């Protein structure tokens, strides 16, 4: 399993090497292309900035008032059976509704425990293997004019919960 950690270091440099190398071989204006894409990235971040400010303030208030602590303390009894840190439960639940709210909560965990702590790593992995369920379903089904979504929600929940369980197992397995 050491291999997986090792692999992590190689993915990004290799991706750059491959894409830029291929671009040069195909005589593409790689730098111009890069700048064009980077401009779009800039716009995307500027677009989410107001959302992030609003939500980080809200999460900050929840943290400062002690509500978050209250929630994770009251969940501790249940989650300790599964050896799952109760601090991450609100993150998993909020992620189903809103991605930016979950991001604010993730950052709050980073601040509290540090990104390299067990909680920091586990929540990073959970955040990257889950998606907003209700938002995605609402937008997509509204477009299609569908009212009865049949087994979509069940499937989405199963995939999400599987992601959380597998993340926890892997973390324990690899002692990250």
């Amino acid at each position, binding site marked *: 399993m050491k291999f997986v950690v090792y692999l992590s270091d190689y993915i990004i440099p290799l991706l750059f090497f491959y894409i830029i190398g291929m*671009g040069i071989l195909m005589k593409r204006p790689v730098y111009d292309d890069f700048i064009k894409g980077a401009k779009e990235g800039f716009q995307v971040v500027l677009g989410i900035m107001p959302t992030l400010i609003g939500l980080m303030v809200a999460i900050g208030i929840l943290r400062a008032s002690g509500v978050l602590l209250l929630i994770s303390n009251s969940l501790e009894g249940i989650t300790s059976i599964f050896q799952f840190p109760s601090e991450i439960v609100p993150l998993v639940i909020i992620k189903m509704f809103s991605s930016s709210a979950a991001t604010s909560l993730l950052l709050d965990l980073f601040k509290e425990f540090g990104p390299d702590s067990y909680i920091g790593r586990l929540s990073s992995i959970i955040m990257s293997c889950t998606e907003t369920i209700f938002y995605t379903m609402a937008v*997509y089904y509204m477009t299609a004019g569908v009212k009865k979504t049949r087994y979509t929600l069940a499937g989405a929940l199963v995939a999400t919960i599987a992601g959380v369980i597998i993340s926890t197992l892997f973390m324990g397995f690899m002692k990250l």
Partner: protein
Amino acid sequence: MINYLWAFMIIIGIVYGAFTGKMGDISTTTISSAKEAVTLCITMLGVMSLWMGLMEVARGIGLMDQLTRKLRPLLKVLFPDIPKEHIVNEYIASNMIANILGLGWAATPVGLKAMKELATLNKNSKIASCDMCTFLIINISSLQLIPVNIIAYRSQYGAANPSDILGVSILVTLCSTLVGVAFSIIARKLSKKS
């Protein structure tokens, strides 16, 4: 939905804080959180621009089209009810590729186009088709292989090696997607029987 969620968080926080005597903390946090959001966005500006720039170069060398074509045989298995040469195959494939590469903003418009076509194939029924269910379950199971944003957040908060979660996160993402796919296939079989 988000309007209620946001208001709820703030109101609950302030009411609870009033009882626990944390009003001073709340005042400081409100201001400092807003500042922190901006600091974070500055890190994000760097990482996201870098990633989007690289992806534009990737588009230039035809990597997206190549990957979309490679996905086609897989689509036949996942969406058996879609006619072979239908345009929706194209939409679904590019939606999935954009999601895999972490270009969520590019994935949504084409994903919505795919949903519209699926609705036409479903005779605009108000009940979702099996193909729609599969498409959404796979989308929600999270396809994004490289979580650039998470790596940016980790670096902002001082992780020693922000991308060291990459290996595990790719494995877990694959596993959760496989679970979503398996669920979709089984649910489709069961719903056809009844």
